[in-house]
Each structure stands twice: as C-alpha cells, then as structure tokens.
C-alpha cells in the first residue's frame, strides 16, 4: 500500500475522486468569475472612469491572503468547498476583468461604427459583434485564471481537507510518504496543462476567422486561399503555437 496511486483511506476518496474534486473547486470559481466579469467588463468600457477603481479593487482583493479569507468565510460557509471557491472566484477577477475590457477594446473603431450605422442595437452589438471579436483576449485571460486557480486549490487542505489534491501534501507529511507529495504536484501540473490545452482548442474552434500566426498555419491558409476550400485540419498547430498575447 505504498504505491504512487495508493491514497490513504482517511482522505475518503480515490485518486480519480480527488481529481474530480480538484477540477470542481478550481474551475467553478473561474466560470463564475468569467460570468461576473462579462457585465463588469462591459460597464468598465462604457463608463470609462469606472475602470481604474474596479481594477484597483480586484488587485487589492488578489493581495488578500487566502488564509485571511478563510478565517472570515468559515463563520458563514463553514469548512466547506464553498469557503475555498469564493476566494478563488474573486481572485480570478483580477485577470478576467482586464481581459474582457481589453477584448472589447480590441474591436476596431470602424467595426463598432459600422455596427452602429447598420442599426444593430446595444445588446446585440455586445453579444454578436464585440464579444465574439473579444474571444482571443478573453480566452488568454481564462488560461491564466484557470492555471492559477488549479494551483491555488491546494491551500484548501488547511481547512478541513478541502484542498483536493492538496490534501495529499498534508497526508504526505502525516504518514511520511513523500511519494504522495510528488503525486500531488505532478497531478496538479498535468491537470493545469490539460485544461490549458482544452482552452487553446476552444479558442481555435471559436475563432476560425483569426489570421494564422505561425508559418505552418499560414501555408495552410495560402493553400485554402489558392485552391478549393479545405477544412482546417491543422489542430496540432494550436498547442505548438507561440505564447498568446497575455492579458
């Protein structure tokens, strides 16, 4: 019972169970943070003076240590997953709000003017013109937020074993089994990479309209431009691509 995947029974979870809890605790906050940052970002673009104080607020929240958050939250939400997820959600805003704002601001002036001149109303313009064009910037933000959230979940181990894979770290100390710590670190890293790859894939699927940036994709584009249109099959190019524009 000392193997890499042998999880001590006091964690009351299998290896896969820990992974699923970990993803839940990491990604639900990012999703909620994303949904919050959509209206906040739009508001910051429309009401210019609002953006600096909002940015300032999210940065200050980000600077609050998670332990301090837990101390406050435990009174309300107890030793639950929610206590871990609320700070993570607030932390994600520091990346997601600017990425939504940058994304909307990346829409060219004449595109906005054309949309307005064609009689596309405000809500439609946001949902059908600005947001789709903001997708690359937003996904760049989501990638950072998801990676940081996945690594931050581990601190939940400090409040009644709510750290999912992070719990393996405390257990490793308790039972003097360093292999558990190694398991925790490696699995967390692999999860972060996989989620990142999924986000890159999503970006590629959502933005067939993006000019390809690496040489392989450019050659594909030239071929499709010259000959009859072929479906874009270069899915491997996505993961090998140069670092994205950071938010």
């Amino acid at each position: 019972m000392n193997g890499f995947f042998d999880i001590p029974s006091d964690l009351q979870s299998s290896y896969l169970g820990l992974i699923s809890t970990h993803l839940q605790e990491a990604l639900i906050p990012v999703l909620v943070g994303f949904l919050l940052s959509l209206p906040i970002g739009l508001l910051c673009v429309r009401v210019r003076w609002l953006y600096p104080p909002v940015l300032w607020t999210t940065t200050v929240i980000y600077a609050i240590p998670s332990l301090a958050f837990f101390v406050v939250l435990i009174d309300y939400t107890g030793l639950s997953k929610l206590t871990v997820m609320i700070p993570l959600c607030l932390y994600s805003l520091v990346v997601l709000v600017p990425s939504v704002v940058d994304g909307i601001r990346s829409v060219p002036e004449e595109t906005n003017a054309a949309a307005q001149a064609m009689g596309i109303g405000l809500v439609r313009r946001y949902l059908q013109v600005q947001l789709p064009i903001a997708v690359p910037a937003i996904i760049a933000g989501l990638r950072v937020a998801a990676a940081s959230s996945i690594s931050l979940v581990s601190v939940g181990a400090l409040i009644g074993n709510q750290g999912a894979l992070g719990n393996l770290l405390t257990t490793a100390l308790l039972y003097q089994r360093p292999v558990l710590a190694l398991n925790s670190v490696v699995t967390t890293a692999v999860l972060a990479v996989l989620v990142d790859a999924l986000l890159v894939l999503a970006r590629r699927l959502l933005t067939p309209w993006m000019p390809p940036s690496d040489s392989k994709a450019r050659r594909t584009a030239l071929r499709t431009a010259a000959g009859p249109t072929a479906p874009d099959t270069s899915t491997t190019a996505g993961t090998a691509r140069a670092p994205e524009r950071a938010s």
Partner: protein
Amino acid sequence: MIAIEDVSKRYADGTVAVDRLSLQIPNHSITVLVGPSGCGKTTTLRMINRMIEPSSGTIRVDGQDVQRQPVNALRRSMGYVIQNAGLFQHRTILDNIATVPRLLGWSKQRARARAAELMERVGLDKDMARRYPYQLSGGQQQRVGVARALAADPPILLMDEPFSAVDPVVRRGLQEELLRIQGELGKAIVFVTHDMDEAITIGDRIAVLRKGGRLAQFAAPDELLSSPADEFVEEFLGGDRGIRGLSFLSTRDLELDRSRVFPIDADRQRIARATSARPADAQPVLVTGIDGKPLGWTDPAAWNGDAGTLTPYGQSFEVGRDSLRVALDRAVLSPTGHAVAVDGSGRVLGIAGQETIAAAIRAARQRHAATSPQGTEYPQDPPPVKATR
C-alpha cells in the same frame, strides 16, 4: 431627397463642428461633401443617420424628420460604408453582407441568396463567400463593404471616406465600380472625402465645406472648376483646375482630319498625291490596318509599305466617350503632336492636332458660357450615368 435645414453641431467644449448648414441632396445622384479635416463633413454625414445628433436644425428624408423616427429602423434604411470597410472580422463575407437583411428579419436562406447576388454586383468572385475578411485585400474588403451597405436595397447610401485607405490604382477601380453600380441602381448617395480629385470624379454635385463647418460652395463639378466661389475653394481645387475642367468637355464635336489617314494596303502614289497638295513638309501620316485600326505614324516620303518601320502611335481616344482632357493628353504625348481618334470598336476616325483641340476647347467654353451663365440652377436630377474619363 435629403433636406438638411439650418443644421448646427456644437460640442460641450465650445467647438463648432457644423455651422448652420443647409443642403438639398437629390435622389438618384451622388452628392459629395468635401473639405479639409475639421470641416464637419463626417459629422454632417453621421447626423443623417443619427449617429450624431444635431444641436439645432432639422434633417428630413423624403419630408420625414429623422429625429422622429426610431433610430435603428432609420439606420437600417440607409446603407453605410466606412473607411477600411469595418467588416465584421468574425463573420464570413456572405454573412457580413447578409447582416442588415437578417436584422430586418429575412430568413437565413433569403438573406444569403441576396448576399450572393450582391457579391456578383460589386464584382466579387463567389468563391469568396465562405472566406473571412482577413483573407481579402483592402480593395476586396471595400467591395464587401459596399455590398453590405446595399444588401437591404436602401434608397440612401452614406459613404464616409470609403476609398481613402486603398492605393490609387485600386481606388480608381472602386470609383469606376461605384459609378457603374450607381448607373444601375440610382441611389441617393452622400459621399464624404477630403480628396478633391475623387469628388470631381464621382460627384454629380459637390458641397465644399470649410473649417468650422460652413458651406463654401455647392455646385456641379464643372461649375466648381470653372467658377469657384472664393479663394478658399480655388485653393482647395488645386493648381490645374483649368486642365481638369476639360474632363467635362466632350470630344463629340472635335474637328477630325481624315486626309492624312491611310490603310496599309493603300497605293504609295496615292499617299504622295494626297500629301503633296500641302506644303512639301515632313507632315507624317497615320497608317491603319485593313480593319481600320491604327498601326503607327510614318513620313509619307519614306513610306515603303513595311509595318515594321512605323513609329508607335501611343494611345488613342474614343470620340464621344473620352473628354477633351484625354484628347489633349494624347496629343501632348504623341510623337507627332496629333492624337488618334477612334470609334467604339477601335477603328480610326481621324486625327486631331493640338491646335485643333485648343480651338475645340475655346468653342466649348464659349458655348458653355452662352448656355449656362453663372448662377443658373443646376438641374435637380442630373443623369445617373457619368463618364469617368
């Protein structure tokens, strides 16, 4: 008919963009707003579809005050073309063009069928339908912009410096295309540009605005060139307005010399006889093919019937279609000082020397002065088709 009545736009900081402007913009014609930057031409255009609200005055479209119409419905009834096209980069060409029909509630198929029809109208290959804007050149994107504006067949087309971001050759092509489309559709087009040449090329009427949004002159292009209202307009027209004005004079009445044009199989004796009636100078003759098309110049004395010895004639002009400006240009560039006049199928009608063209210019000027003395009202609906050269 768009009636701009005493319209002003003042901003909170005190800047006046447009100052008590009144303009009548007729249907079925292109009205150009031209002027230096800061003259309020774009502001004026954007007040028509209420992207900017005027501080005072009214704008009526067919008698209806635009202020009283629901803003999005109003905008959908006017096509809008912008500099750099402003295409939706995340939509295919076909869906870009189909935007307004979709907003108006057309079914997807009907909107796309209409979009495909428009691609053809603006000269875009139908293979481009599924492409994205980044895969098109600037000129092609601008064509898509025009097609998108025309999609719902609006009676009015607003164009805001649409061709200023493309290179001169492409711009010329787009201008000619716009005139062709206008010849077919006959919209009320309001066109903003800072380029006087462009204004003269495409405008049926031109409103010259000066800084601070005041109207300097509102006239047809030939009138503008021949009688600018003041120094500002004259300066804005540039140095060669006399030459440019020739673009509006037809070559139809040009007196052509046929006596020095011979087919290649003509008897050499005959050529010598015909030319010996003149002073025995080295006046060259034009040799044409058996089909009547020009081949080149030769000295009648040295002519031996070999087409290889001919001096190239350069370019010809088409009588009736090309203007006196083109004829003069051809004459100046010709090695003999004579321009070659051809008909629609390229057959030689005769030649015209620089003196002949100069005489024609004087005659046309006199005729023009007699028929339209200064201050005469220009016809409200000028003919929709306009020669570009």
